[in-house]
């Protein structure tokens, strides 16, 4: 019997599923329109904009000091680094000489932010693959960093500690002590992460060979951060375009060549070790000095275009400012890492199962406000 004839008479339709905008795995209000065939994903179409706040348009209206606090609300898990990006852009444009103390403090807090972001990611990652306990262990360690931030900056998440020209105020006297305590604590807890989740046979099977992204595709998709480095693409802005005090420290750029979800996972775990080593190199000799250089109350950037990239916890954040010499930017574009990283989701998820989609999306470490801006 010719089976082709039999099946050609059967009507078949695509099966659509709306994952989101309210869904536990999308980490915010992101809608994914899935076309599936049973459990197998045929297409993933992200639908964005549920929390778009038009930050780029608001920036055209605000002064440069005011723009900084808007960037807190983009990628809220690495808000300090976002602030730093804008401040560096302004400082470079004005050719301000920033005190060494500021640079070192910015780098330390930036790396703490990275650890805080990665611990949260680790907890949520575990939850996405069904291990609910990781969430609490991740948050336990993250709380300590948030306490350090709160003591020094006054806020736990949206810190707004940077201002163009330096820092808003000096670090708290307890900062160094608490940071050292945290590093000592976290060095005992990070191996526990590996024992609980990384080594687990179920987890390994879930992650290995899933969501493969080749190096060429990673570059072409503009993947950055741990997503790019998991594919063997050396894209660490801290190495290639060092900023603040990052040229004074030695650290290893973590690279994995597998390009699968497990590689991206391991890159982040290793990065926490590297971040701790960066902090350890700087924490004992924070240079004395001012934490601000005087700027005009109304900052006017010279006419021209300025681009600054920094490495946030998610990847490369670019700030592109076009100035016409007034107190507001003419156009300000944030090249956010999450946006580029999300665009490759369809590429790595097609052909996998629904569970694979969730797992690989977790390794992309998407923060929706970062995408929607």
């Amino acid at each position, binding site marked *: 019997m010719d089976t082709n004839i039999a099946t050609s008479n059967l009507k078949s339709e695509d099966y659509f599923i709306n994952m989101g905008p309210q869904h536990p795995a999308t980490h915010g209000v992101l809608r994914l329109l899935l076309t599936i065939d049973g459990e197998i994903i045929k297409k993933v179409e992200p639908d964005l904009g549920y929390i778009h706040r038009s930050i780029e348009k608001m920036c055209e209206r605000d002064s440069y000091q005011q723009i900084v606090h808007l960037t*807190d609300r983009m990628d809220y898990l690495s808000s300090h680094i976002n602030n730093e990006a804008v401040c560096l852009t302004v400082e470079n444009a004005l050719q301000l000489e920033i005190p060494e103390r500021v640079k070192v403090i910015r780098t330390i807090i930036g790396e703490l932010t990275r650890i805080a972001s990665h611990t949260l990611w680790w907890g949520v990652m575990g939850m996405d693959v069904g291990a609910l306990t990781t969430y609490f262990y991740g948050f336990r360690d993250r709380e300590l960093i948030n306490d350090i931030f709160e003591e020094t900056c006054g806020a736990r998440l949206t810190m707004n500690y940077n201002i163009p020209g330096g820092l808003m105020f000096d670090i708290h006297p307890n900062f160094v002590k608490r940071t050292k305590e945290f590093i000592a604590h976290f060095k005992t807890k990070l191996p526990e992460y590996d024992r609980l989740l990384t080594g*687990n046979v179920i987890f390994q099977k879930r992650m290995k060979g899933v969501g493969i992204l080749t190096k060429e595709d990673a570059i072409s998709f503009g993947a950055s951060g741990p997503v790019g480095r998991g594919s063997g693409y050396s894209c660490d802005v801290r190495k290639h375009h060092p900023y603040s005090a990052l040229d004074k420290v030695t650290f290893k750029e973590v690279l994995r060549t597998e390009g699968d979800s497990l590689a991206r996972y391991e890159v982040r775990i290793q990065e926490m070790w590297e971040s701790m080593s960066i902090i350890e190199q700087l924490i004992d000799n924070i240079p004395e000095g001012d934490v601000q250089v005087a700027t005009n*109350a109304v900052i006017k950037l010279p006419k021209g275009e300025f681009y600054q990239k920094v490495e946030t916890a998610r990847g490369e954040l670019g700030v592109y400012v076009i100035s016409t010499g007034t107190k507001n930017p003419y156009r300000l574009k944030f090249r956010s890492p999450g946006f580029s990283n999300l665009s490759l989701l369809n590429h790595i998820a097609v052909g996998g199962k629904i569970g694979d989609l969730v797992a690989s999306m977790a390794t992309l470490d998407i923060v929706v406000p970062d995408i929607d801006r």
Partner: protein
Amino acid sequence: MSYFGDIAKGIKTLLTGMSVTGKYFLTSRKGAITQQYPDNRETLKMFERFRGEVVMPHDESNEHRCTGCQKCELACPNGSIEIIWDRQIDAETGKKKKMIDQHIYHLGMCTMCGLCIEACPTDAIVWAQNFENSVYDRSYLTKVLNKPESKVKAGIED
């Protein structure tokens, strides 16, 4: 034989994971991270730099330090500060001077960025560590920071 080897290795990793959670199960009474919030109000103290809300400190003679220069209003990115002022005759000099009438602060619009406090030349406004800001009606979030009948402290100039 890798078939059985895999099974043994797999079981070992599972037991390793269980030992981590098991250890915490036994020690959880000591290491509980739960904050029993409304009960620990007395001991729960925010850090001194914590940004809860903007307040204007008054001294015992009901005097504050705000001259009504409007620098905070300009610095605020969200328009959460509005200053209503008029020109009044200064009692000492007899000249007409800008005097603050009301310093209105919309807590509901505030993003706690701290730019107003940075901008204030006379340190008239500071952060308060109050974090229980929820109210039943949105209109309660609009606050007048200077108390009624309060005056500018003598000698404060911007």
